[in-house]
């Protein structure tokens, strides 16, 4: 059943369409939501979508993970390690930025009692 889904082409289509839909969900949240935490969740969702898009598109189902171990020593049949390394870095950086943003919004809330992005108007004189 569903054998045709296993073709490399079809997997790439699934990954592209699926991750872009996830990206759309995040973008939709970014544009419509107002609470700081919702905004950060939307940004994190978009990031996850991009990472899935990248890793999924660079994935070849006939290859193995890029780790040499017993039975898996064929270098020519390994997945590309660079995307993995890049995404590793990007995940950590994204988390750091989100944590910083969350802590800033906590402090902002303590000072002003405001949790919504639309009501940030300290500057409008």
């Amino acid at each position, binding site marked *: 059943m569903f054998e045709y889904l296993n073709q490399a082409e079809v997997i790439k289509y699934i990954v592209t369409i699926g991750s872009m839909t996830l990206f759309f969900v995040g973008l939709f949240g970014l544009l419509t939501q107002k609470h700081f935490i919702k905004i950060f969740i939307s940004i994190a969702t978009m990031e996850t979508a*991009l990472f899935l898009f990248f890793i999924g598109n660079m994935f070849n189902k006939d290859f193995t993970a890029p780790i040499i171990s017993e039975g898996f020593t064929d270098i020519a049949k390994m997945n590309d390690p660079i995307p993995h390394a890049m995404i590793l870095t990007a995940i950590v950086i994204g988390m750091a930025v*989100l944590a*910083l943003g969350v802590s*800033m919004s906590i402090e902002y809330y303590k000072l002003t009692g405001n949790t919504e992005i639309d009501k940030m108007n300290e*500057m409008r004189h």
Partner: protein
Amino acid sequence: MSSILFIALPLLFGFSTPILNKFGKNAVVYSSTSMQAFLLYLAFTLLSGNSSHIEVISIAPPLGISFVLNSVSLLFVALFTLMMTLFSLYYLSHRKTKPYKNETKFFILLNMLLAASIGLVLSSDIFNIYVFFEIAGISAYILSSYEKTPSALEAGLKYLITGAVASLFLVFAIVLIYMNLGSLNLAVIAQGFETLAFNTKLLISVLLLIGFGFKVEIFPLNFWVVDVYEGSSTLVNSLFSSIVVKAYLFVFFHIVYLFLPSGEFSVFLIYLGALSMLAAEIAGLRQTNLKRLFAYSSLGQVALIFTAFAMQNIDAVQAALFIVVAHSIAKFIIFLALTNIEKEYKSMDITRLKELNSPFLRAMMLIAMLSLLGIPLFAGFIGKFLVLKSLAVSGFIGVLVLIIIASLLESVYYFKLIGFMFTKGEKREVLKIDFIQKLIFIILSFALLLIGIVPFFFSGFSHESASIMLDNASYILNLVGGR
């Protein structure tokens, strides 16, 4: 001498600050300042010699990360280290009267910002550029909300959210580049970018433009800039307009030159820059807050630099380099002067300038404003003149008219400010300025006058830098050899 020191030393000092802190309260402040001064010395010794080399990290360029030091990146490195050293020196005298809380953390952020902006300029690997993009961004977010007042936090949050979205689009572009070209090295990408399908090229360019557009403060994406300038402390604003945005501008056009050496995209960028300049100057006319007003002026000047860089010919790039230097120095003077005014008068309303009682500060601000306006004999003139000239030569008459209109609008509010400064009115008591601060002001304004009066003295260097920045072939050859 190795160019990696420009990045490794600030990082090392940033990381090791808690150890340095054990040697007394002032150890961090003084050691960081002297480290920056050392880097400044290093940059100027390299500037005087004719040095161009590639610094390899771990493995050789097409596969690994490398840093390219040539005369144009050296110019930016020297500018950044100069500004940062002067900033630290200024802070040394500022802290006697109004120190920040947690000075050590403040200096960690300064060092990280320096390392990141130098890294942005030197790096030749697009993912590495993304990492530095984030370091510079995060230090800027924290610096802008450093004082933890409601408006500072609002500024920081706005900066952070836009910055996070910007980096998202940058990552998207990098992902597409790696998927289609199989490399992260700028030179290899530049070689292969031509061969891509039109749609992919379009998508990558648009994503890069959105990603960097937030950071280089270009028209539809610069809604956050003015709030950030107003909310952050005046002292920190001098860094934003003289270091951070300049680093992003350089790296954006470095990438544009390599990937899209010619074509409709750069025409689009020229119009975009001119429109942003006009929009910024129109909005600037109505401002009554000094910080907001100078923020709009910064937007205008950055858009002018953007237009000049987008022209992609030697004259215009040379002009852009002149404006970069002139604008950095002039805005630095202005924001430092505003820091003094704010400390004394506790308000940033433009009418406050009427009460300013300090002939020295008035003279300094006058020099900086005249330079920003592009009056002959000041540093801003030569850049603006060259931009207009090359626009006329290339036939962009519409853009020329837009820029002239924008400049006239700019002069309206600048002359209003100058009028305020020199009206006889109720003056407050004399504003005292520290000796070190006076020295910094004098050095910077002397530099403005020097560039303004003898621009031909620098034209050889700027011509060489501009041609190196535009010379893709040798950049690629240096990085990937004969491949």
